[in-house]
């Protein structure tokens, strides 16, 4: 096959390997890739790594925060082996995501208006009212087209049998799309032959699609909406992405200090005076958006923004208050939410989830801490988590105390053997590394999904954690037409 894959141990009996169906027998959509890699020597791989590194360096794609001493800016770890998804698999994922996002949007609309789902007791009301992300200030406001979640990214994994499952919904400022776009550019330069062999669905138009979506959801009274990106500033770890997207869309990148609300309208301060803006793609969390209404000492927002939004003079993407629906506890109710609003069963299933706030579930969780993954419901990024099989008795006891003290804050799931994908270690040998997938969904007049998304890979051997802040990397993702 190739010097690399010959020695690749897929461990197919334990894991679903994305490339190898069984040892020595690859899945068909990887045939051409394996053939090509069979022609590479170590030096060939090294040369391609150089091409990729130079590209990323020139683009300035680093993920270190601009610290005081401007330390070494590290490149975001990128693996050279692409992840390939055949079109028919993607079709299911796409349908499932559209269904899920549509239902979640209905849910948000309901929660911020008549709250029928709570009155019908499908979801316990205290889960919503007790959520720190439920923004009472936004109740009764009608965002244009009734859309709350304009840009989302649901994380998808595959279990041992290869089933695609949704692991988590990200309804507030999901990041990583700039890496997805840059990965594709890098791969095109490094593996031009492969791009000839495969019919890969393009993703380069994402910025145009994003801009179109943002324009579609503007205040209905504004014909040619003025769109800006709102960033927390250069010290934010995702700043590169904010400025990248602003540049690609051709819109202004602003910070809170550039904005001012006057008589319920939002303006940027320019050298020509105040310029009204209509749509803000905001990469600032709710709590920091408006010191008049939320945290008063936030330096990142602008006073009066929520009132301007309420009045319909500006639209925010995503809307305020979406965090109430990407809570890990609400996640466990999503199948019920899909059923309630759409009358359908979920196309993409959830990972089984137990809620510590449910007394029966709590008993089960406490009895099975050594085999479960317990997560804090309100954090993101992989912190505040107990991975049962990897933990000590002491850690389990400590966690048990925390769970019992604040049951509403914890959920548990079985340890899923995430699917694995051959990835380079030191660009010399291949290991099976766990991966997930984060597709990006745009919701304007219609729902648009970029083919593929960001495949995140846990590059630390044996690690299950794919987040970039904890040693993860990424791969280019190809949806190929057969």
């Amino acid at each position: 096959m190739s010097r690399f894959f010959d020695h690749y141990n897929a461990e197919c009996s334990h894991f679903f390997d994305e490339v190898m169906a069984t040892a020595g027998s690859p899945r068909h959509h990887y045939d051409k890739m394996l053939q090509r890699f069979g022609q590479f020597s170590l030096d060939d791989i090294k040369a391609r790594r150089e091409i990729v590194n130079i590209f990323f360096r020139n683009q300035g794609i680093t993920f270190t925060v601009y610290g005081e001493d401007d330390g070494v800016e590290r490149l975001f770890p990128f693996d050279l082996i692409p992840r390939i998804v055949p079109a028919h698999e993607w079709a299911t994922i796409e349908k499932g995501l559209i269904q899920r996002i549509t239902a979640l949007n209905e849910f948000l609309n309901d929660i911020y208006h008549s709250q029928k789902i709570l009155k019908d007791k499908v979801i316990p009301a205290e889960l919503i009212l007790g959520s720190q992300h439920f923004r009472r200030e936004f109740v009764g406001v009608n965002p244009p087209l009734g859309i709350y979640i304009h840009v989302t990214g649901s994380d998808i994994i595959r279990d041992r049998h290869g089933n695609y499952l949704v692991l988590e919904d990200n309804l507030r400022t999901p990041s990583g799309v700039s890496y997805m776009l840059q990965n594709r550019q890098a791969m095109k330069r490094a593996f031009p032959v492969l791009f000839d062999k495969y019919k890969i669905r393009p993703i380069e138009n994402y910025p145009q699609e994003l801009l179109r979506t943002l324009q579609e959801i503007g205040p209905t009274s504004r014909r040619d909406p003025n769109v800006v990106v709102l960033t927390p500033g250069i010290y934010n770890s995702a700043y590169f992405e904010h400025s990248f997207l602003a540049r690609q869309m051709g819109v202004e990148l602003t910070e809170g200090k550039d904005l001012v609300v006057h008589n319920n309208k939002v303006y940027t301060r320019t050298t020509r005076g105040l310029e009204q803006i209509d749509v803000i793609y905001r990469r600032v969390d709710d709590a920091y958006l408006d010191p008049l209404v939320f945290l008063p000492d936030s330096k990142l927002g602008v006073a009066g923004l929520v009132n301007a939004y309420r009045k319909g003079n500006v639209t925010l993407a995503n809307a305020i208050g979406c965090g109430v629906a990407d809570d890990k506890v609400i996640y466990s109710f999503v199948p019920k939410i899909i059923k309630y609003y759409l009358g359908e069963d979920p196309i993409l299933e959830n990972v089984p989830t137990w809620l510590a706030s449910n007394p029966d579930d709590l008993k089960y969780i406490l009895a099975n801490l050594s085999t479960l993954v317990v997560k804090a419901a309100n954090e993101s990024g992989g912190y505040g988590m107990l991975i049962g099989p990897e933990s000590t008795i002491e850690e389990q006891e400590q966690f048990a105390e925390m769970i019992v003290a604040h049951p509403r804050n914890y959920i548990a799931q079985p340890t899923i053997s995430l699917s694995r994908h051959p990835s380079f270690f030191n660009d010399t040998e291949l290991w099976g590394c766990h991966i997930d997938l984060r597709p990006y969904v745009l919701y304007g007049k219609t729902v648009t999904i970029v083919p593929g998304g960001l495949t995140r890979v846990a590059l630390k051997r044996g690690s299950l954690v794919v987040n970039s802040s904890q040693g993860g990397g990424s791969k280019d993702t190809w949806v190929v037409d057969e």
Partner: protein
Amino acid sequence: MLSRVAESLFWMSRYFERAENTARFLDVNFNLLLDLNKITHVENPNYWIALILVTSDKERFNSLYESYSAHTVTDYLVFNKNNPNSIISCISLARENGRSIIESISSEMWEQVNNLYHYLQGVTPQFVHNDPYSFYKEIKNASHLFQGITDNTFSHNEGWDFIQIAKYLERTDNIARLIDVKYHMLLSEAQNQGDIIAGSEDIIQWMAVLKSCSALEAFRKVYLSKVDPDNILRFLILDRSFPRSINFSVCAAEDALWRISGSSRHRYVNNADRLIGKLEAELSYTAIEDIYAKGLHHYLEDLEQRLVKVGEQVHLTYFAYHTPEIEPLDIEEALPFTGVAGGRPNWSQAQQHQQQQ
């Protein structure tokens, strides 16, 4: 463009120019001393005092150092972080402004200011003392490189115009101060000696004034070897072709301001344009006799104040957090500028709450 970005471009450029000018003064002074020492063998603190006077913060210097010497003045003007106008302070601020708008400048521009900053962090006072010539050359070269990179990698749009305005306002201000101080130093000495132009010592000092502005060779091309005060003043203040003369710099700043606002001769759009237009018009019809009639010191002092006003109006018109359509253009009411865009407290704080009783 965003006011904040324009303001940062302006100040990045202004601080860079300020650092370069300080390096020039120091460099020439060292050369001057070397030349003079061949004649008098005495270290005259007056020359060092003059440098501090040019940047006009004698009090601050006196509070930090006990005497004027090569060592103390160099330390103050190059390394002291308590001096907001030292080379190291200026480049730090230039870099900070650049970093806050890193997406608006070219990567080469950022690399250049960043490299200079790190170079300065690594230089020791000892190194400067041993080889001042190399050090100041490094600063000048870095500045030239920065300007060249900017010209070639930054679109000549509104942002570029703000960079030019800052550079030329700063340059004009620096030349005016330098002439003022040097002229009077030289004049008072000459009076003491009873003869304005005599002896090789004076010629050398007059040439030093020109060298500070990198103007010696250009001057010679125009005035040949007639190195006298009148010609020097004519060249440095009124010459329209030499890029480091006052007249040239004022014209360049005016051109940039007009490009931004769309003003033209006889038709100004805002106060910044009006003030600079007035200044440029007067300069174009001024002769050396007019300057002497007013008194050189008064003339230059007046010029400096007018430049300050131009800077204030640029700030109010384009950068200030009150935009003209809302605010009367009254500098008294505008919040003070702190030299780094965003250095003002431009974030919200909560009003107090009333307790219910």
